[in-house]
Protein backbone atom coordinates (compact mmCIF):
# COMPACT_ATOMS: atom_id res chain seq x y z
CA UNK A 1 0.00 0.00 0.00
CA UNK A 2 0.99 3.56 -0.60
CA UNK A 3 2.19 5.48 2.41
CA UNK A 4 1.76 8.94 0.88
CA UNK A 5 -1.66 9.36 2.56
CA UNK A 6 -0.40 8.84 6.10
CA UNK A 7 -0.32 12.54 6.94
CA UNK A 8 -3.92 13.21 5.88
CA UNK A 9 -6.28 13.94 8.75
CA UNK A 10 -10.01 14.66 8.85
CA UNK A 11 -9.16 18.32 9.41
CA UNK A 12 -7.06 18.35 6.25
CA UNK A 13 -9.92 16.83 4.30
CA UNK A 14 -12.48 19.29 5.68
CA UNK A 15 -10.19 22.22 4.90
CA UNK A 16 -9.40 20.96 1.40
CA UNK A 17 -13.05 20.30 0.56
CA UNK A 18 -14.07 23.62 2.09
CA UNK A 19 -11.43 25.48 0.11
CA UNK A 20 -12.88 24.14 -3.11
CA UNK A 21 -16.48 23.47 -2.09
CA UNK A 22 -17.48 26.83 -0.59
CA UNK A 23 -16.55 28.98 -3.62
CA UNK A 24 -17.98 26.28 -5.86
CA UNK A 25 -21.33 26.23 -4.04
CA UNK A 26 -21.49 30.03 -4.17
CA UNK A 27 -20.73 29.98 -7.90
CA UNK A 28 -23.38 27.33 -8.58
CA UNK A 29 -25.98 29.30 -6.59
CA UNK A 30 -25.26 32.53 -8.47
CA UNK A 31 -25.33 30.74 -11.83
CA UNK A 32 -28.65 29.05 -11.11
CA UNK A 33 -30.21 32.34 -10.00
CA UNK A 34 -28.99 33.92 -13.22
CA UNK A 35 -30.23 30.98 -15.34
CA UNK A 36 -33.75 31.28 -13.91
CA UNK A 37 -34.19 34.43 -16.03
CA UNK A 38 -34.33 32.13 -19.05
CA UNK A 39 -37.68 30.78 -17.98
CA UNK A 40 -39.28 33.99 -16.68
Amino acid at each position, binding site marked *: *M*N*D*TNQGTTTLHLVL*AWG*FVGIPLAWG*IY*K*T*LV*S*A*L*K*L*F*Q
Partner: protein
Amino acid sequence: MGLIYFCFMMVGAAIVRIPAAGWLPAGYVPPAQPKKLITNRNVYVYEALKTPQFWLIWCVLCLNVTAGIGVLGQASAMSQEMFPGRITAVAASGLVGLMSLFNMGGRFFWASTSDLIGRKNTYFCFFALGTLLYAIVPTAGDMGSIPLFVLCFVIILSMYGGGFATIPAYLRDMFGTRYVGAIHGLLITSWSVAGILGPVLVNYIREYNISHGVPKADACNITMYLMAGLLVVGFFCNLFIRPVDDRHHMTKEAEALGAAE
Protein backbone atom coordinates in the same frame (compact mmCIF):
# COMPACT_ATOMS: atom_id res chain seq x y z
CA MET B 1 -9.18 36.64 -11.36
CA GLY B 2 -5.56 35.93 -12.16
CA LEU B 3 -4.65 36.12 -8.51
CA ILE B 4 -7.46 33.74 -7.50
CA TYR B 5 -6.40 31.35 -10.25
CA PHE B 6 -2.79 31.56 -9.09
CA CYS B 7 -3.76 30.76 -5.46
CA PHE B 8 -5.88 27.74 -6.41
CA MET B 9 -3.21 26.37 -8.73
CA MET B 10 -0.49 26.79 -6.11
CA VAL B 11 -2.54 24.95 -3.50
CA GLY B 12 -3.20 22.16 -5.98
CA ALA B 13 0.47 21.94 -6.98
CA ALA B 14 1.50 21.83 -3.31
CA ILE B 15 -0.80 19.00 -2.23
CA VAL B 16 -1.05 16.70 -5.28
CA ARG B 17 1.11 13.58 -5.01
CA ILE B 18 1.79 10.76 -7.44
CA PRO B 19 0.78 7.41 -5.90
CA ALA B 20 3.58 4.94 -5.28
CA ALA B 21 4.10 2.24 -7.92
CA GLY B 22 1.53 -0.52 -7.54
CA TRP B 23 -0.72 1.51 -5.21
CA LEU B 24 -4.41 0.58 -5.22
CA PRO B 25 -7.32 2.17 -3.35
CA ALA B 26 -8.23 0.28 -0.15
CA GLY B 27 -10.70 -2.50 -0.93
CA TYR B 28 -10.23 -2.30 -4.71
CA VAL B 29 -10.36 -5.69 -6.38
CA PRO B 30 -9.25 -5.74 -10.03
CA PRO B 31 -11.73 -7.50 -12.35
CA ALA B 32 -11.00 -11.22 -12.63
CA GLN B 33 -11.66 -11.25 -16.37
CA PRO B 34 -9.32 -8.93 -18.31
CA LYS B 35 -11.20 -6.66 -20.70
CA LYS B 36 -10.29 -6.58 -24.38
CA LEU B 37 -9.88 -2.80 -24.58
CA ILE B 38 -7.94 -2.43 -21.31
CA THR B 39 -4.28 -3.32 -21.54
CA ASN B 40 -2.11 -4.47 -18.65
CA ARG B 41 1.02 -3.48 -20.53
CA ASN B 42 2.65 -0.20 -21.53
CA VAL B 43 3.38 1.60 -24.77
CA TYR B 44 6.33 4.00 -24.92
CA VAL B 45 5.28 7.61 -25.50
CA TYR B 46 6.76 8.01 -29.00
CA GLU B 47 5.74 4.49 -29.98
CA ALA B 48 2.13 5.52 -29.23
CA LEU B 49 2.40 8.10 -32.03
CA LYS B 50 2.94 5.23 -34.48
CA THR B 51 -0.33 3.55 -33.59
CA PRO B 52 -3.61 4.20 -35.40
CA GLN B 53 -5.30 4.20 -31.98
CA PHE B 54 -3.53 7.40 -30.97
CA TRP B 55 -4.69 9.26 -34.07
CA LEU B 56 -8.19 7.88 -33.92
CA ILE B 57 -8.51 9.03 -30.31
CA TRP B 58 -6.97 12.35 -31.40
CA CYS B 59 -9.77 12.73 -33.96
CA VAL B 60 -12.40 11.56 -31.46
CA LEU B 61 -11.42 14.27 -28.98
CA CYS B 62 -10.95 16.91 -31.66
CA LEU B 63 -14.41 16.35 -33.16
CA ASN B 64 -16.13 16.10 -29.80
CA VAL B 65 -14.51 19.32 -28.60
CA THR B 66 -14.99 21.17 -31.92
CA ALA B 67 -18.72 20.62 -31.73
CA GLY B 68 -18.93 21.59 -28.05
CA ILE B 69 -16.68 24.61 -28.03
CA GLY B 70 -18.22 25.96 -31.21
CA VAL B 71 -21.64 26.37 -29.64
CA LEU B 72 -20.27 27.41 -26.26
CA GLY B 73 -18.78 30.53 -27.81
CA GLN B 74 -21.91 31.33 -29.80
CA ALA B 75 -24.64 30.20 -27.41
CA SER B 76 -25.44 33.68 -26.19
CA ALA B 77 -25.87 35.22 -29.66
CA MET B 78 -27.53 32.09 -31.00
CA SER B 79 -30.16 31.94 -28.28
CA GLN B 80 -31.06 35.62 -28.68
CA GLU B 81 -31.35 35.24 -32.45
CA MET B 82 -33.44 32.07 -32.29
CA PHE B 83 -35.79 33.50 -29.67
CA PRO B 84 -35.84 37.25 -30.38
CA GLY B 85 -37.58 39.21 -27.67
CA ARG B 86 -37.92 36.15 -25.47
CA ILE B 87 -34.29 35.56 -24.51
CA THR B 88 -32.66 38.83 -23.47
CA ALA B 89 -28.91 39.44 -23.19
CA VAL B 90 -29.15 38.90 -19.40
CA ALA B 91 -31.05 35.63 -19.81
CA ALA B 92 -28.55 34.52 -22.47
CA SER B 93 -25.71 35.04 -20.01
CA GLY B 94 -27.68 32.81 -17.63
CA LEU B 95 -27.81 30.16 -20.35
CA VAL B 96 -24.04 30.32 -20.78
CA GLY B 97 -23.62 29.98 -17.01
CA LEU B 98 -25.95 26.98 -16.96
CA MET B 99 -24.04 25.39 -19.81
CA SER B 100 -20.83 25.86 -17.85
CA LEU B 101 -22.37 24.07 -14.89
CA PHE B 102 -23.30 21.14 -17.09
CA ASN B 103 -19.85 21.24 -18.63
CA MET B 104 -18.45 20.80 -15.12
CA GLY B 105 -21.02 18.24 -13.96
CA GLY B 106 -20.61 16.24 -17.16
CA ARG B 107 -16.97 15.69 -16.32
CA PHE B 108 -17.93 13.85 -13.13
CA PHE B 109 -20.98 12.11 -14.55
CA TRP B 110 -19.60 10.84 -17.86
CA ALA B 111 -16.14 9.94 -16.55
CA SER B 112 -17.80 7.89 -13.79
CA THR B 113 -20.21 6.35 -16.29
CA SER B 114 -17.25 5.31 -18.44
CA ASP B 115 -15.94 3.25 -15.52
CA LEU B 116 -19.13 1.21 -15.73
CA ILE B 117 -19.85 0.98 -19.45
CA GLY B 118 -16.33 1.42 -20.88
CA ARG B 119 -14.65 4.35 -22.63
CA LYS B 120 -15.60 3.35 -26.15
CA ASN B 121 -19.28 3.00 -25.30
CA THR B 122 -19.21 6.35 -23.52
CA TYR B 123 -17.93 8.04 -26.68
CA PHE B 124 -20.58 6.22 -28.68
CA CYS B 125 -23.11 7.90 -26.37
CA PHE B 126 -21.50 11.30 -26.97
CA PHE B 127 -21.54 10.96 -30.73
CA ALA B 128 -24.95 9.32 -31.15
CA LEU B 129 -26.78 11.44 -28.59
CA GLY B 130 -24.86 14.56 -29.63
CA THR B 131 -25.82 14.12 -33.29
CA LEU B 132 -29.46 13.74 -32.31
CA LEU B 133 -29.41 16.78 -30.03
CA TYR B 134 -27.69 19.06 -32.55
CA ALA B 135 -30.26 18.00 -35.13
CA ILE B 136 -33.10 18.78 -32.70
CA VAL B 137 -31.90 22.34 -31.89
CA PRO B 138 -33.30 23.91 -35.11
CA THR B 139 -36.61 22.15 -34.45
CA ALA B 140 -36.66 23.56 -30.93
CA GLY B 141 -36.19 27.00 -32.48
CA ASP B 142 -39.02 26.44 -34.98
CA MET B 143 -41.30 25.21 -32.18
CA GLY B 144 -40.36 28.23 -30.07
CA SER B 145 -39.55 25.88 -27.20
CA ILE B 146 -36.97 27.47 -24.92
CA PRO B 147 -36.93 24.51 -22.47
CA LEU B 148 -36.18 22.05 -25.30
CA PHE B 149 -33.49 24.37 -26.68
CA VAL B 150 -31.88 24.74 -23.24
CA LEU B 151 -32.12 21.00 -22.57
CA CYS B 152 -30.34 20.19 -25.84
CA PHE B 153 -27.57 22.66 -25.18
CA VAL B 154 -26.89 21.67 -21.58
CA ILE B 155 -26.71 17.96 -22.44
CA ILE B 156 -24.41 18.76 -25.37
CA LEU B 157 -22.14 20.73 -23.03
CA SER B 158 -22.19 17.94 -20.44
CA MET B 159 -20.79 15.68 -23.15
CA TYR B 160 -18.20 18.25 -24.13
CA GLY B 161 -16.89 18.25 -20.55
CA GLY B 162 -17.39 14.50 -20.28
CA GLY B 163 -15.34 13.88 -23.41
CA PHE B 164 -12.49 15.89 -22.03
CA ALA B 165 -12.62 14.14 -18.66
CA THR B 166 -12.85 10.62 -20.08
CA ILE B 167 -9.98 10.88 -22.53
CA PRO B 168 -7.12 10.25 -20.01
CA ALA B 169 -8.80 7.00 -18.96
CA TYR B 170 -9.28 6.02 -22.61
CA LEU B 171 -5.54 6.59 -23.16
CA ARG B 172 -4.65 4.60 -20.07
CA ASP B 173 -6.80 1.70 -21.28
CA MET B 174 -5.08 1.76 -24.67
CA PHE B 175 -1.47 2.52 -23.78
CA GLY B 176 -1.04 1.57 -20.10
CA THR B 177 -0.21 3.76 -17.13
CA ARG B 178 3.52 4.38 -17.47
CA TYR B 179 3.52 7.08 -20.16
CA VAL B 180 -0.11 8.10 -20.03
CA GLY B 181 0.76 11.61 -18.78
CA ALA B 182 3.10 12.31 -21.68
CA ILE B 183 0.78 10.68 -24.22
CA HIS B 184 -2.07 12.82 -22.90
CA GLY B 185 0.13 15.87 -23.32
CA LEU B 186 0.62 15.02 -26.98
CA LEU B 187 -3.04 14.17 -27.52
CA ILE B 188 -4.18 17.44 -26.06
CA THR B 189 -2.99 19.13 -29.27
CA SER B 190 -6.35 17.94 -30.64
CA TRP B 191 -8.06 20.20 -28.10
CA SER B 192 -5.91 23.11 -29.29
CA VAL B 193 -6.91 22.46 -32.90
CA ALA B 194 -10.55 22.13 -31.89
CA GLY B 195 -10.30 25.36 -29.93
CA ILE B 196 -9.57 27.15 -33.20
CA LEU B 197 -11.69 25.00 -35.51
CA GLY B 198 -14.94 25.11 -33.51
CA PRO B 199 -15.39 28.86 -33.08
CA VAL B 200 -13.98 29.60 -36.56
CA LEU B 201 -16.38 27.16 -38.23
CA VAL B 202 -19.39 28.40 -36.30
CA ASN B 203 -18.55 32.09 -36.78
CA TYR B 204 -17.59 31.76 -40.43
CA ILE B 205 -20.66 29.80 -41.48
CA ARG B 206 -22.96 32.07 -39.50
CA GLU B 207 -21.43 35.25 -40.97
CA TYR B 208 -21.42 33.75 -44.47
CA ASN B 209 -25.10 32.87 -44.26
CA ILE B 210 -26.13 36.22 -42.82
CA SER B 211 -24.16 38.09 -45.49
CA HIS B 212 -25.97 36.02 -48.13
CA GLY B 213 -29.40 37.03 -46.89
CA VAL B 214 -30.23 34.09 -44.62
CA PRO B 215 -32.28 35.29 -41.61
CA LYS B 216 -30.26 35.32 -38.39
CA ALA B 217 -32.49 32.72 -36.74
CA ASP B 218 -31.97 30.31 -39.65
CA ALA B 219 -28.23 30.94 -39.96
CA CYS B 220 -27.65 28.96 -36.79
CA ASN B 221 -29.55 25.95 -38.11
CA ILE B 222 -26.98 25.17 -40.80
CA THR B 223 -24.23 25.34 -38.17
CA MET B 224 -26.12 22.87 -35.99
CA TYR B 225 -26.44 20.40 -38.86
CA LEU B 226 -22.73 20.78 -39.61
CA MET B 227 -21.88 20.04 -35.98
CA ALA B 228 -24.11 16.95 -36.14
CA GLY B 229 -22.15 15.89 -39.24
CA LEU B 230 -18.84 16.27 -37.41
CA LEU B 231 -20.13 14.02 -34.66
CA VAL B 232 -21.07 11.36 -37.20
CA VAL B 233 -17.44 11.38 -38.37
CA GLY B 234 -16.35 11.10 -34.73
CA PHE B 235 -18.68 8.13 -34.28
CA PHE B 236 -16.86 6.24 -37.00
CA CYS B 237 -13.41 7.18 -35.68
CA ASN B 238 -14.45 5.73 -32.32
CA LEU B 239 -15.88 2.65 -34.03
CA PHE B 240 -12.52 1.84 -35.64
CA ILE B 241 -10.61 1.85 -32.33
CA ARG B 242 -9.23 -1.60 -31.54
CA PRO B 243 -6.69 -2.81 -28.94
CA VAL B 244 -3.09 -1.75 -29.66
CA ASP B 245 -1.09 -4.33 -31.60
CA ASP B 246 1.39 -6.37 -29.54
CA ARG B 247 4.39 -5.10 -31.49
CA HIS B 248 3.87 -1.58 -30.06
CA HIS B 249 3.99 -2.69 -26.41
CA MET B 250 7.18 -2.41 -24.37
CA THR B 251 8.99 -5.69 -23.88
CA LYS B 252 9.12 -7.15 -20.38
CA GLU B 253 12.88 -6.43 -20.32
CA ALA B 254 12.37 -2.78 -21.26
CA GLU B 255 9.67 -2.40 -18.60
CA ALA B 256 11.90 -3.97 -15.94
CA LEU B 257 14.80 -1.72 -16.98
CA GLY B 258 12.57 1.36 -16.75
CA ALA B 259 11.29 0.35 -13.32
CA ALA B 260 14.83 -0.11 -12.02
CA GLU B 261 15.91 3.38 -13.15
